[in-house]
């Protein structure tokens, strides 16, 4: 029987037996297993891992991978109206080109002399996002918008020395769950009600709940239910009058047409940048941001890495560097109040590419076209007998609520019917917000044509009939 060929792997150059032998000779070790001699025998794994055999040929690996992923049905193949925190926007080809560059894909924590381009691209992203939200200090990407909001309200608690955060009753359940976990250190989260007709925050309830214990009023604009919170300035004023911080969560794709939160009194702005040229990736496209005024007392509370522009010894060039690392968990270790680590850096760079392509005019047009399409969709869906749409009266940005209490169908049934017609319908709110009855949250963006919306409306009409 011929001897089995050596196990040489394309990812492991030193798997060639002759090379291994030469290296072992160099270090004076007979068998590579001797290198594990400091691990006590009783802690060693003596068996063989029960894993499928290796697929050594790339063609075979690709075939296997494609077989699996083809069991998925993407939003390219179906018409999708899902949003609720992750959004289907058009991703410009230049964004994809930069996102797949080996230089950015393979960069990590190299410093400015190895990775200057990474630093500059990130600084530029921070700069362009700062223009959108109206803030001078912007962090590198955080894990996602939910963790950004968790960090933001904890900053407010540290700044005020208080431990209660008022949050909207319409808050995203996912972000609320993240914030709850993040604030499970003695910080209480108190919901503030909303007007049942408009969906906007109930300011009387806000006044009643504000107190000397309030560290922050956190609100989302547009809200999770898609509505533009027109009372932003009043909410911030009320928060400030109580000595609390105003923390605003925004959808950056709205900021070509909506006021930057700094204009209506936000002290800390946070949000999720996935809408800015990042694919949905089954949720893997999310990334968070935090912005504040460039005041030392705010900046020194930011938990993330911060990339600052810097002078160099050479005239005519910009450098970049890590700023004030003593703020971060890297330096504070067991004295930390928050933490950072490897997050979503590449998506910040890609969002910068997106904003550079869009420019001020593109962002304004994006907002305008979405607003018109959303209103058209609401109108068409509202014409269907038994469907109340919009279910809430405030102006929506790219999502709106439709209520199906006037039909005899549950949202789950309706979505099954839509799926049979090749449509991913609105996100079911029935369990998340029982007060809204049988309702769904529909998302419409610039990718949805009039024909797409008409198709949704026709399918819905059939399904609810």
């Amino acid at each position, binding site marked *: 029987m011929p001897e089995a060929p050596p196990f040489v*792997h394309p990812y492991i150059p030193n798997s060639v037996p002759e090379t291994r032998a030469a290296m072992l000779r160099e270090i004076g070790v007979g068998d590579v297993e001797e290198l594990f001699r400091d691990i006590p025998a009783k*802690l060693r794994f003596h068996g063989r891992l029960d894993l499928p055999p*290796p697929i050594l040929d790339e063609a075979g690996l690709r075939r296997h991978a494609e077989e699996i992923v083809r069991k998925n049905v993407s939003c390219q193949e179906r018409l999708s109206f899902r949003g609720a925190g992750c959004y289907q926007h058009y991703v410009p080809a230049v964004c994809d080109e930069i996102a797949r560059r*080996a230089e950015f894909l393979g960069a990590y924590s190299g410093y*400015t002399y190895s990775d200057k381009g990474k630093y500059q691209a990130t600084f530029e992203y921070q700069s362009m996002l700062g223009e959108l939200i109206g803030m001078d200090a912007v962090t590198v990407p955080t894990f996602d918008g939910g963790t950004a909001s968790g960090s933001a309200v904890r900053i407010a608690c540290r700044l005020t020395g208080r431990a209660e955060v008022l949050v909207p009753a319409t808050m995203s359940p996912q972000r609320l769950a993240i914030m709850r976990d993040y604030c*499970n250190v003695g910080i209480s989260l108190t919901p503030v009600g909303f007007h049942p007709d408009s969906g906007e925050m109930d300011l009387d309830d806000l006044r009643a709940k504000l107190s000397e214990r309030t560290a922050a009023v956190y609100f989302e604009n547009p809200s999770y239910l898609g509505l533009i919170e027109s009372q932003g300035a009043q909410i911030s004023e009320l928060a400030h009058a109580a000595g609390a911080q105003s923390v605003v969560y925004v959808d950056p794709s709205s900021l070509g047409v909506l006021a*930057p939160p700094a204009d209506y009194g936000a002290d800390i702005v946070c949000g999720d940048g996935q809408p800015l040229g990042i694919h949905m990736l089954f949720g893997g496209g999310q990334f968070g941001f935090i912005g504040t005024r460039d005041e030392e007392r705010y900046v020194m509370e930011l938990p993330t890495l*911060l990339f600052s522009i810097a002078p160099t010894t050479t005239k005519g060039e910009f450098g970049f560097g890590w700023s004030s690392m003593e703020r971060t968990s*890297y330096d504070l270790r067991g004295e930390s109040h928050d933490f950072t680590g490897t997050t979503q850096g590449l998506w910040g760079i890609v969002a910068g*590419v997106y904003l550079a392509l869009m420019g001020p005019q593109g962002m304004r047009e994006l907002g305008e076209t979405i607003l018109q399409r959303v209103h058209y969709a609401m109108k068409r869906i509202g014409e269907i007998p038994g469907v109340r749409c919009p279910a809430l009266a405030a102006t929506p940005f790219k999502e709106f609520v439709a209520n199906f209490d006037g039909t005899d169908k549950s949202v789950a049934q309706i979505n099954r019917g839509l799926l049979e017609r090749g449509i991913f319908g609105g996100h079911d709110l029935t369990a998340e917000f029982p007060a809204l009855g049988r309702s769904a949250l529909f998302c419409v963006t610039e990718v949805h044509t009039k024909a797409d919306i008409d198709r949704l409306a026709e399918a819905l009409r059939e399904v609810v009939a």
Partner: protein
Amino acid sequence: MIEAESKITLRRFHAARWNEPIILELGSPGQRGIHVPPVEPELAAEVGPVAVPESMRRRQPPALPELAQHQVLRHYLRLTQETHSLDLALAIGEGTCTLKYNPRVNEEIARLPQVADLHPLQDEATVQGMLEVLYRLARYLCEISGMDEFSFQPGGGAHGVYTNASIIRAYHASRGQLGQRDEIITTVFSHPCDGGCPATAGFKVITLMPEETGYPSVEALKAVLSERTAGLMITNPEDTGLYNPHVGEFTRLVHEAGGLCAYDQANGNPLLGIARARDAGFDLCQFNLHKTFGTPHSSIGQSCGAVGATSALAPFLPVPVVVERNGRYAFDYDRPQSIGKVRQFYGNPQTALKAYLWIRALGAEGLRLVAQTAALNNSYLVKKISEIPGVALYYGEGKVRLDQARYSWEPLTRETGVGTQDIERRMVDYGVENYFPSHVPWLVPEPFTLEPAESNSKHDLDTFVEVLRRVAEEARTDPELVKTAPHQSTIGPIDEAAVNDPHRWAFTWRAYKAKGLDYASSE
């Protein structure tokens, strides 16, 4: 065959130096990078212009650049040329980071619409492929670690450590002991997040210091254990590359004291198929898929801290967890003891997919080969680096450093006045990535930490050694050359004081302008 590669010639490298302006300085009014799909006239006619509430109308357009498409692409391509990823430059110096090859076929798969354009809230029937990947990867990682369940929700290694701290908190709370058990024990050579994350979760953190061995003694651990102990959170091997052989005793003692043990496996590369977290007595662990499992580091992004738990602690994992029922895969949200969520949706599923494919390409035999080769590469590098005059190694005399080693230039610095950060800047002039000195505190003086993962060839290692040997020589013959480096990089040395001065730092272009800074014309 080996001889052909044996000759080491240091490169006459010079980085691209584009002096690329900040993008907000580029372009001119009216240029467009892309058009938004226009509203159809019939649609516009039907709804008319839609106004946003007056109070929320944007009055000033955002001061974004106005650039045509090609100019945007060119700007960013120039920035890519000024970024030396592991695919261009040897990244052996980024110790603790496990920079290894990221198979391109996995990237191609993750770009398919059936991955890239999946909405996370689609009907489960339409995402069976992704659920299958998450389910199978969880099973593989259970096999590799000995744990019973896995979650991929944490968006990074530190985030995984934080999740474990949150699980420890929830566990003690479920037993009514949270008020009493408020101390987490870690070690100073574990990653800083092993202290930072439990502190964030509200714990007091006790940090053990190393003995001559490089790790704390069993006695040191015993001295801090009490009824206040909530848990132990450590790496092993630690950042020194030294494996604490008493880890089994550590976990036993912590359990006896009523605490839990969480294993930060950021340094898990040399242990694949060699040693398992569960067998060392851990209740929880986390793998950094972007390190050990070959997925890209993505400019500090697309990461995943996969968290594993024993069946006793699995009920506390974030929701949802993927389950299999009669050949169909589903999300299980019905876990009343769960800590809830640590990130929206399911983390970075594209990263889990790439890690899955990486494991499939290697199998059990390949994973063991990864661990062996990581250890072989490191032992080889330790020998070669130690031969460079001016280098010292502290701790762990005679012990094997498994995946990485923290070296010291102290003898060289004493002799020449050239410090580790000078060398860090100078090595870039030879076309390799700068090395990572050390986390703080610097217990090892003038430190540098090297980690030669398995995707580096012997020739790569030899080349890297020669770069450091050359720079050490320069420190003796021409110390100013090293102290004023880099000379052939993308930029000259930056003014580190400026980025730490509130009056001179700027994190955005608008802050730079508002502060009246002018770095481009300063010397």
